[in-house]
């Protein structure tokens, strides 16, 4: 398949497979999906179906057993420095926030910029602005242990945005939040996506969360169960 035929695609997979234990366990098998720039896609499915594995492959956190992944027209396998790729193009949001407990909210947001080009002061200023925009003006120096779940996830969102990524990969971003905070976080993600034209790929098993996405991809037993289901 010629990637040039899909100029709008930001991520595309070709027969993507991820096997463990000498192929006895097939986390993913023959995944073919295309995600377009600016889309909000929800990957849904039961626990252990392989949706987080798919997100990890898209996020270049794991390597597939076989198949190909493309970012725009570039194959992941041709990318020499995947760390740099993640830093430049991807922002991660995790279910358990994964903030570093010994760093303040501000430093957690600044952390991905360490060893990045640019002055530390610029990075700090940008982090501060992001946190202020997310309503955390009074929480800059607070440590994660002293913040509510909603606040922590907002810090994680700011951290995901600090390097101006092209796409946000969110693994159960509302899984640890109550319904009010969950709605707030989804509103923020949607707002940022619309303003910045970001692509959002979100893994969830919660139908009320996936309902917010433009398109839902169902995964079951490592395969796409239904073809891409457009909601809008």
């Amino acid at each position, binding site marked *: 398949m010629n990637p040039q035929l899909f100029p709008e695609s930001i991520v595309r997979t070709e027969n993507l497979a991820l096997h463990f234990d000498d192929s006895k366990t097939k986390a993913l098998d023959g995944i073919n999906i295309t995600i377009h720039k600016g889309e909000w896609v929800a990957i849904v499915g039961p626990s252990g179906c392989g949706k987080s594995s798919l997100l990890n492959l898209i996020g270049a956190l794991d390597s597939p057993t076989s198949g190909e992944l493309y970012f725009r027209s570039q194959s992941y396998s041709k990318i020499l420095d995947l760390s740099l790729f993640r830093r430049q193009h991807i922002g991660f949001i995790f279910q358990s926030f994964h903030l570093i407990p010994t760093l303040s909210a501000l430093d957690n947001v600044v952390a991905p910029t360490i060893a990045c080009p640019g002055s*530390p002061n610029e990075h700090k200023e940008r982090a501060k602005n992001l946190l202020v925009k997310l309503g955390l003006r009074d929480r800059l120096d607070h440590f994660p242990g002293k913040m509510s779940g909603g606040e922590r996830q907002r810090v994680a969102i700011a951290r995901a945005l600090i390097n101006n990524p092209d796409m946000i990969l969110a693994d159960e971003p509302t899984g640890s939040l109550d319904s009010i905070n969950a709605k707030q976080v989804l509103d923020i993600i949607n707002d940022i996506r619309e303003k910045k034209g970001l692509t959002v790929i979100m893994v969830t098993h919660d139908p009320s969360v996936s309902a917010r996405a433009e398109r839902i991809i169902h995964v079951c037993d490592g395969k796409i169960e239904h073809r891409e289901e457009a909601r809008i």
Partner: protein
Amino acid sequence: MNVLSFALNNLYHRPARTSLTVSAISLGIAAVVALTSISWGFEASWQKANDARGTDLIVTRVASENAMPSAFLAAKYVQPLKNQAHVQEVVGLLSEMLSVSDNAPPVFVFGWAYGSYLWKHLRLVKGYWPSNDTEPVVVIGSLAAELLHKDSGDKIEIEGRQFQITGIFESSAVVENGALLMTLTQAQQVTDKLGKVNVLNIKMDGRASDADIESFKAHVRKMMPGFVAITSGELVSNNTIVRISKAMSHVTILIASLVGTLVVFNTMLMSITERKKDIGVLLALGWQQRTVMKLIFCESVVLTLIGGCIGILVGIVMTFGLEHMDLMRGKIDAVFSVPFLGAVLGLSVIIGIGGGLYPALKAARMRPSHALRCE
């Protein structure tokens, strides 16, 4: 925030582990500083004593590596050596470490040929010098006077013989300040070594060239089988006690380095195991492997540098305490040179890098997806 401030923050938030590791490193470094400075100081103080006397060469037995070269009958050698070109003086020296009272630690007792040049570098601070070779009198170093609670005019018993202390002197060499000094004849009598000396001190005139000194050495080898003419530096560095103390300091450096490396290794390994998820997050957020390694190295090197600085201070205090113990006073003069202290800090950095290497590699090679699954 940069890698260093992040590393400092990580250490700050683990105070118990940080302080335990720093303590272990400081103790190791303190032992290195104390033993090495004492070992070098021991050598330097003997070297200083020989240099202060103005001796150019020392004639002694070939097996001069004993703590004190064994005594020999000197009379038949003195005149032939004096006859050599540019030789100004040939002076016998006898020394022993003797107990001079029941409660005091042993002190060095030197016997120097009466009226020789050896006496000239000393400064008399009280009393007077021995006025002849026959009276049982001693002069006493200022440190020895303090240590033995003796003053000019007091009596002192050496090997069962009573001596009158006629004066107190000071020398630039601590070993002489801690010693008792009498004429060679008196020393030979009190140690039952009549006519014997441990070494012959050779003073050359100002015109002697290196070639003249080499020629003198060759003459001694030929004329005095079993003897050798060496510089005071060679005599000191061949000394068994000096060699043992140096070997001990080398072994201490080796053990302290190995233990320090293992302590840092263990600390950093525990630290990265505990922070597996955090490291996975950083890798997922785009940290490169080399940045993770830099972070771990910063942490391990900061730990060992702090330990090194504290260790140096503790080592200096320990050495100062040792120097002032009654048993050691007047026998060692520890040396703390800037290059030595710099080398100790360098050793601390090497320990930090050595101990942090495997944990840093392990952290950098973590697969972020696996690390993130860690709870």
